[in-house]
């Protein structure tokens, strides 16, 4: 892989992030020319919640952010602070820095998204590939329509359904019916001091339902895509020749079939990341899971503009990064791209 290829990918990554943040910056400014800090101040005053630190907040922002200055100067300021990794202060939780809030929430979201998306991708692709192969087990054939039915349902709807079924006690549920945590990432009764094994296990236990809402909804999508790709691959001459050379069916299936059918699936995965993130935000809100989605939701509800900016910026970086990673990894998994790389 050449330096120019990597350079071009990095350039593309920066360009995408820059364009997206620019849109994020200008869109609310074009829509209204009101000062968000003053808006917030007025709102809090109206509800009698004017905290003592409020004047300091306005002063800090007027100075820090230069809200009275022309738009292009504000934009330059905004960009230069982003480059320095400075996401400003939270309006509601002043003087907490937005960056610190995000760092606190990030592991939860990354863990939830990472594990559920990878699980769904792996399970879906594997079952899709098996379904395309002669001799696929009957139960799997029966399961596909079920997952296909689940796949167009938005994550948050599935989240509510799962919550209703598995987080709430009903009359009709038999004794053995499992009940899982309704909300949060750890038990309310336990206070943890830093990360340890118990806390990780507790978090995983609390993440089952949010993760299942994503996994159940996605399996059908990946299975369908993989089945289609696998059917195409099976018609390829190299699979036929592999069979005619007397290779073992397991080897033909994995190294000749799946290995090739996975390539377009990975592209779909990188492209689907933005949709997945936006879906995860709502799942987090429903389960009051302390990730970036809940943070964003609360920020929107409380007009905490700088938290919104910050979270959206980090989400943009994550989505752009997933595409970037795919671009870097792709030449290693598809030698035909290597020449172009």
């Amino acid at each position, binding site marked *: 892989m050449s330096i120019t290829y990597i350079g071009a990918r990095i350039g593309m990554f920066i360009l995408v992030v820059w364009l997206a943040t620019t849109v994020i910056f200008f869109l609310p400014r074009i829509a209204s020319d009101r000062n968000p800090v003053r808006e917030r101040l007025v709102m809090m005053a109206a509800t009698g919640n004017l905290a003592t630190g409020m004047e300091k907040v306005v002063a800090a922002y007027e100075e820090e952010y230069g809200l009275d200055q022309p738009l292009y100067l504000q934009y330059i300021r905004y960009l230069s602070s982003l480059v320095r990794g400075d996401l400003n202060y939270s309006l509601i939780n002043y003087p907490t820095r937005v960056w610190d809030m995000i760092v606190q929430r990030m592991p939860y979201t990354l863990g939830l998204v990472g594990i559920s998306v990878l699980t769904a991708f792996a399970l879906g692709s594997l079952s899709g590939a098996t379904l395309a192969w002669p001799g696929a087990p009957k139960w799997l054939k029966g399961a596909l329509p079920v997952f296909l039915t689940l796949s167009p349902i938005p994550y948050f709807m599935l989240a509510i359904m799962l919550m209703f079924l598995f987080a709430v006690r009903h009359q009709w549920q038999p004794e053995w019916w499992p009940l899982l945590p309704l909300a949060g990432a750890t038990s309310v009764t336990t206070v943890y001091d830093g990360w340890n094994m118990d806390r990780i296990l507790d978090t995983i236990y609390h993440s089952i339902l949010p993760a299942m809402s994503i996994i159940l909804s996605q399996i059908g999508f990946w299975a369908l895509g993989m089945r289609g790709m696998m059917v195409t691959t099976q018609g*390829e*001459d*190299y699979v*036929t*020749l*592999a*069979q*005619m*050379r*007397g*290779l*073992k*069916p397991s*080897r033909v299936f994995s*190294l*000749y079939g799946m*290995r*090739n059918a996975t*390539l377009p699936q990975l592209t779909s995965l990188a492209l689907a990341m933005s949709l997945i993130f936006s879906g995860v935000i709502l799942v987090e809100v429903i389960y009051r899971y302390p990730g970036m989605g809940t943070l964003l939701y609360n920020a929107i509800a409380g007009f905490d503009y700088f938290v919104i900016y910050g979270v959206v910026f980090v989400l943009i970086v994550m989505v752009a990064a997933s595409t970037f990673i795919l671009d870097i990894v792709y030449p290693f*998994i*598809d*030698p*035909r791209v290597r*020449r172009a790389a």
Partner: protein
Amino acid sequence: MPDAVLSIRDLRVYFNIRAGTVRAVDGVDLDIAEGEKLGLVGESGSGKTTTALAIMRMIKPPGEIAGGTIQLDGRDLVGLSEPEMRAVRGNDVAMVPQAAMNALNPVRRIRSQMIDGLRDHGVSESRERTEERLTTLVAQVGLNSNVLNLFPHELSGGMKQRVTIAMAICHKPRLILADEPTSALDVVVQRQVMETLEEVRSEIGAAVILVGHDMGLMAQFADRIGVMYAGKLVELATVEQIFSTPRHPYTRLLISSLPDTAGKRRLEGIPGLPPSLLEIPPGCPFMPRCPEAMDICGVDVPELLGETDMVSCHLHTEAATV
């Protein structure tokens, strides 16, 4: 033929589709001697490729081997279980595929793909020994050993076809099936590839069935030629006999439709179309197009008869002379 490597009797391959049963191969008898080169010709849909696939037991649904026996060294392949058959493929019978352009896995190096075959046929040896073996194999087909490090897209069409030949001879098979191995190559490379195939074939002493419709290629390569029409073998004779004294009217028309480099004769085709394999008419399948058709041809299917030059035509049976 008692010393036959391959002995096919009454092979029938049917495709059961909604419209009925397509008789792609309908009662083929064929013997191939050790080290013999047999050309199988015929127009598209005559059943030549299907016959080759049937020998490999690679007929896929809705097709099936509806009857007959395929004996390889006295062992009936039709009766083998799928795992037993897998061990035969590549080991006793090898295939040189039609479109080498896409016949190799695009994401794996040639070396790994060749090693796959060794592993799955139970060859376990040291890495050095394997490397030596692979180097010898690719050298046999006229390639440098650095192709082992390459991916298929880095090879030319001719090189890819040579790799498939190297794969085919890897286990010294008794029989090689070559299904139009040069159809995707230009004429110069075609010749080189065919010469390579002949060289390695004679080295390992394998018999070859060359499937194709290039009569010129057949004349240069084969010992005997089998002519197929509508799922049946209509004539089977040595190359000399086929070209000098073709006996079946279809073979005659086939040869007279070849371009002539000497004269400025107009190219002539065979009028009409082969019958639908769904409803093969009674009697000789070639009768509707045959310039020498007789009354009996419409009612009775001629058998493949003869000693060295076998033909299935009523012009050469008792029925016609009576």
